[in-house]
């Protein structure tokens, strides 16, 4: 098991910036207000029978001023570059060359939005008899936009963030679906906690409004179809509704934050992750229990923010695990934001930090009783991220003393 926890003598790590652009809106206030109102933004028609949570339109110009930059990106990169800018703003370091020149970036990314017209054109021509040996080569050479590749490459989200916001430290991109988001936070935290780094930008972005992605998840029958329901109410109607979102965090050593007068939303105390074999029923829940045992939780008001997807059997296994920690009220981000894959875990950390800083967990949005009201301010929130197929991550976000 791999873990990152603040050990005695190690640096405390604060969350000093949060950037959110989601299906519920942009920025912390809009997202918080939507959560209070239990608002959910789904599109049941545009990708029917699949359901998606579309991005609430934003003005990309405000964070990506050059149109040329915007044109070089596909939607997932624009969303992420935008959210990263919001996080830098939130931390008060936008345009601060001294800090941005050394900030370490760890991005969780998928990639590859395809040009659907090119793909459809090739398949249609082949269906109609095109079968010359070089047919595919010739079509790709003539039809693909030269810069599309750069809009598809996983590490070009980080690349675009660096270009647009002027980041000049280090840059690492982790792939691997949901747990990539947990690993990104885990590595950034461990680097700061050990003194290798002072400040890091961590997060991811996802465009759920993509038919090529729906096809990929349809292979495994993972798409939620026809009718929306909260994550916990999908037992007989399983699946996830892909969501569009960008979620970025600025993590910073306490000393670095205090030296520049930055205020924390919360502290990130620990991030742990593992890969359950998931061969037998209970394997995943056992791994979640092991991860839980590694978190330095303590007495006091706690809550859980879960990235449960609605896909089975993972969601039922996770629900079993949650039942054994029933003193922690639960919220599933998948209900409100959809499933944003690599971004779900950073989104969970962001909402945990926001809840702690605002002195309340957001209200339940569930019809099954899995989510219950919480009275009073949480002092510790555990973020749980169990992938729809592989990978388990967990983080502890706490109030700063």
């Amino acid at each position: 098991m791999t873990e990152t926890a603040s050990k005695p003598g190690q640096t405390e790590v604060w969350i000093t910036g949060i950037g959110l652009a989601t299906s519920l809106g942009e920025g912390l206030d809009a997202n918080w207000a939507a959560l209070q109102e239990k608002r959910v933004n789904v599109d049941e028609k545009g990708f029917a029978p699949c359901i998606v949570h579309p991005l609430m339109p934003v003005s990309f110009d405000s964070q990506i001023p050059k149109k040329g930059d915007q044109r070089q990106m596909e939607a997932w990169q624009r969303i992420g570059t935008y959210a990263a800018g919001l996080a830098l703003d939130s931390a008060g370091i936008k345009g601060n060359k001294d800090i941005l020149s050394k900030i370490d970036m760890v991005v969780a990314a998928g990639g590859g939005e395809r040009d659907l017209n090119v793909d459809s054109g090739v398949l249609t021509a082949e269906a109609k008899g095109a079968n010359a040996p070089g047919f595919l080569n010739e079509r790709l050479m003539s039809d693909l936009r030269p810069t599309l590749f750069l809009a598809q490459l996983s590490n070009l989200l980080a690349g675009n963030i660096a270009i647009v916001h002027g980041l000049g430290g280090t840059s690492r991109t982790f792939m691997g679906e949901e747990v990539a988001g947990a690993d990104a936070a885990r590595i950034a935290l461990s680097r700061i906690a050990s003194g290798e780094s002072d400040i890091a930008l961590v997060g991811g972005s996802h465009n759920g409004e993509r038919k090529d992605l729906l096809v990929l998840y349809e292979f495994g029958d993972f798409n939620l179809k026809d009718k929306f329901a909260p994550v916990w109410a999908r037992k007989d109607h399983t699946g996830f509704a892909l969501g569009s979102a960008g979620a970025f965090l600025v993590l910073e050593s306490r000393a670095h934050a205090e030296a520049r007068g930055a205020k924390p939303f919360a502290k990130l105390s620990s991030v742990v992750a593992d890969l359950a074999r998931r061969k037998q029923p209970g394997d995943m829940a056992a791994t979640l229990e092991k991860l839980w045992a590694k978190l330095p939780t303590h007495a006091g008001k706690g809550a859980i923010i879960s990235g449960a997807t609605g896909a089975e059997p993972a969601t039922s296994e996770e629900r079993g695990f949650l039942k054994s920690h029933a003193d922690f009220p639960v919220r599933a981000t998948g209900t409100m934001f959809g499933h944003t894959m690599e971004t779900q875990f950073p989104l969970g950390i962001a909402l945990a930090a926001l809840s702690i800083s605002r002195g309340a967990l957001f209200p339940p949005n569930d019809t099954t009783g899995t989510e219950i009201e919480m009275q009073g301010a949480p002092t510790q929130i555990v973020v749980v991220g169990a992938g729809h197929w592989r990978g388990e991550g967990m983080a502890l976000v706490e109030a700063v003393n």
Partner: protein
Amino acid sequence: MTAPRDKFGRPVVVVTGMGIMTSLGAGKADNWAKLVAGESGIRTITRFPIDGLKTTMAGTVDFVSVDPFSSTALSERMADLVTQEALEQAGIGAKGDFPGPLFLAVAPVEVEWPQRRELGRAAGKLDVNYDDLLRISGGGKFAAYHHRFMFGSVAAYLAETFGTKGSPISLSTACASGATSIQLGVEAIRRGETDAALCVATDGTVNPEALVRFSLLSALSTQNDPPQAASRPFSKNRDGFVMAEGAGALVLESYEAATARGAKILGVIAGCGELTDSFHRTRSSPDGKPIIGCMKKTLADAGMEPDQIDHINAHGTSTPENDKMEYNTTSAVFGELVQKIPVTSNKSMVGHTISAAGAVEAIFSLLTLEHQRIPPTINYDIPDPTILFDVVGNKARDARVSAVMSNSFGFGGQNASLILTREPA
């Protein structure tokens, strides 16, 4: 013999196992013999039709077969084989029980054309669009494609096969990925999180669309005939890189853990560094500052001065821009030494193994340290007069080599360097 900690008080990180595969062949012995003999692994592509392509050669790994074929499946198979070789040499842990985490550099994963065409046929229509594909994708018939084309699929397979601990990390920093995987392993050991790490890098993505993508960016050599002469780093008539496949695996351990179990130490990862270039998506900042900074950070991380480096394993892609930029930036860091330090580019022979290159070239650097012999840069017939490196041209050179710098630079402003030494400094 030496203190288990470096001059900064961190655990010294050593290499105790290596496995490699390139277009030259499988394994260290075969690769090294061909590398020092100046053989090229670049050949005309036979895996798929080349009609209509501007670039028709690559350094493919054709001697490993996977069925059904996909670039991701080939990447996984190569990673599996090089990891077996590395673990056999290291003799660490038990079968299926590696005592540390996995850091895997792997090309971004996507559904590929053979699978997409299969879907197109299954749609059974003359006009096929993505709604048609979506309609026929479910029901379990193509479930294996979900599992295959998850970004984390290769890492999950390796983690389960070799029993690495914790959450395996799949990473991409473009052409620097292999170096980044090593850097992540070094950092984990230095932090004391683990005594050992498995760092693997693999790339099997010579497929039509990948080739077209690089071709449309004018990044590839089009000197197709003869293919062996296409990759000519530091030559005046270089015109682009040559795509290639390969994989490398390194077992990293703390010096203390390695010596405690009596392992043979193959070399030391003395320093690593990285620095982002925010200038442009595919081009380096014209002033070269990020690359210069990357090399300087790496020297500082190793606690070394430029005059302690006696060989540079260059990124040396054979693109007009890279090689020139690499010379200029190396000059800025090394000053007059730049004309005295032997420089070579393995890519002249094995091509550019993209995601794997950083690890493949780190292994070749470690073999250079072991054999005290620097592999040549082949096709070095018309030196670029503006690049004044002491290029080890065409013939391998015996040399006293105690510290090698290995550089990797990639799209998206990714720069990473490693310093490898024979023994702890």
